[in-house]
């Protein structure tokens, strides 16, 4: 049998009574909200599985060059990663503070990836390497 313990005890040290009322409201609202989402989670899981199949299939299609195949695979992977982040990790409904973290992380990761370009261009010596020997 499922057990249904009482809603959480107050933990809001500033104003326990108010917090309790809030928590209670929050929880019943949450539970309703969550139950609505369950189907969406399963659906997204299905979409991700289908996308995995598509990624595998696309990798055996010759798009003319390896680079094109890489770009296409990365587009599908980014779409999948976006789904995981937005739906499973609830980023779609997440607070602004979290988004701030992630925007800064994205900027730094972008910078990190751009560092690999220095492999091709040496800004100090002003040299460009098209193919290293």
């Amino acid at each position: 049998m499922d057990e249904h313990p009482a809603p959480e005890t107050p933990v809001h040290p500033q104003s326990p009574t108010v917090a309790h009322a809030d928590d209670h409201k929050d929880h019943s609202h949450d539970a309703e909200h969550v139950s609505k989402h369950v189907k969406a989670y399963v659906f997204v899981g299905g979409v991700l599985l289908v996308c995995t199949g598509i990624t595998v299939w696309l990798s055996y299609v010759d798009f003319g060059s390896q680079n094109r195949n890489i770009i296409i695979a990365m587009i599908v992977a980014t779409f999948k990663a976006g789904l995981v982040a937005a739906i499973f990790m609830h980023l779609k409904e997440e607070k602004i503070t979290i988004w701030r973290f992630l925007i800064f992380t994205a900027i730094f990761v972008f910078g990190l990836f751009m560092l690999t370009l220095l492999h091709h261009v040496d800004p100090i010596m002003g040299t460009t390497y098209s193919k290293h020997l």
Partner: protein
Amino acid sequence: MQIPYEVSARPDTGLYNAKLGIWLFLASEVMLFGGLFSSYIFLRIGADPGYWPHGLLNVPVGTFNTAVLIGSSVTVVLAWASLKMRRWNAYWGWMLATIICGTVFLAVKLTYEWPQKFEHFGVFIKQDAFPKYEPYLGNKHLEEEKREPRLEITGHIHQMDITRDGKLESILPKEKEEAVSPSEADGVLSEEGVKLVDYQVQLDAINADPSDKDNDRPHFRQRAVTEKIAKIDAADIASASAFFPRHSSYFSCYFLITGLHGLHVFAGVLVFTYFLLFGKKLYLRNPEHMANRVEIAGLFWHFVDLVWIFVFPIFYLL
């Protein structure tokens, strides 16, 4: 002392403590994996033609593992949803399913994929010896097709010939085994007074028939090692290794990134197992706190899934 905002959200940020913490941690994880992925890009762009291998990993197995991990992402979110709806039994079931998925993923990696790589052997041929090994490399054909050259002969070690203090000796597979294990071969070569004379490699399909157009691009299902054997003289070898990290930049990236990812999966399984076995007490005392814990661990788990979504195509498919 009661720590504030342990369970309920802080009014101004709308976040409870652990939520803030896990996202900061995940941001640092993004930088960690970002660093490794950017070194992958660096090494791959910098690789000379022919030095970035394709089709060495088992795609069906990789696809299966991807599906398992995606499945576990669904089950962990359902476990959290069950707690939110205060359905302990449903939570328990979904959590167990998540742990099983994580364990299956690790088991496939550690007992099948990696060991298989450790038994596979590759010999990079010196450039001036290319004509001699053309029947196994098929570079004329690849040039006609405008594809990258093939520099390596791969397969299983059928036999290894050595000289021990000047006397010729052959290392053969052990009884009941079909090939010489590369680690064993390395062990013999590291002994004093031992010099390599040649490897006799039981060829992969791609080297057995290198001019076959069908072998130009990797296949979904890996082809078995053929019966054909190539003798490769020690003087013609640029480097020889099992599919260990030292084999190539490709395999060192592969083992490092999938290894670190595997450790993350292992950590997730540990935490989930703790929640499964010891979560009831907290659930009865404060179910919302328990739900929050599962949400946090779930966020970590989804991130691990998200990393794999990129790892899978860049190593297995492209």
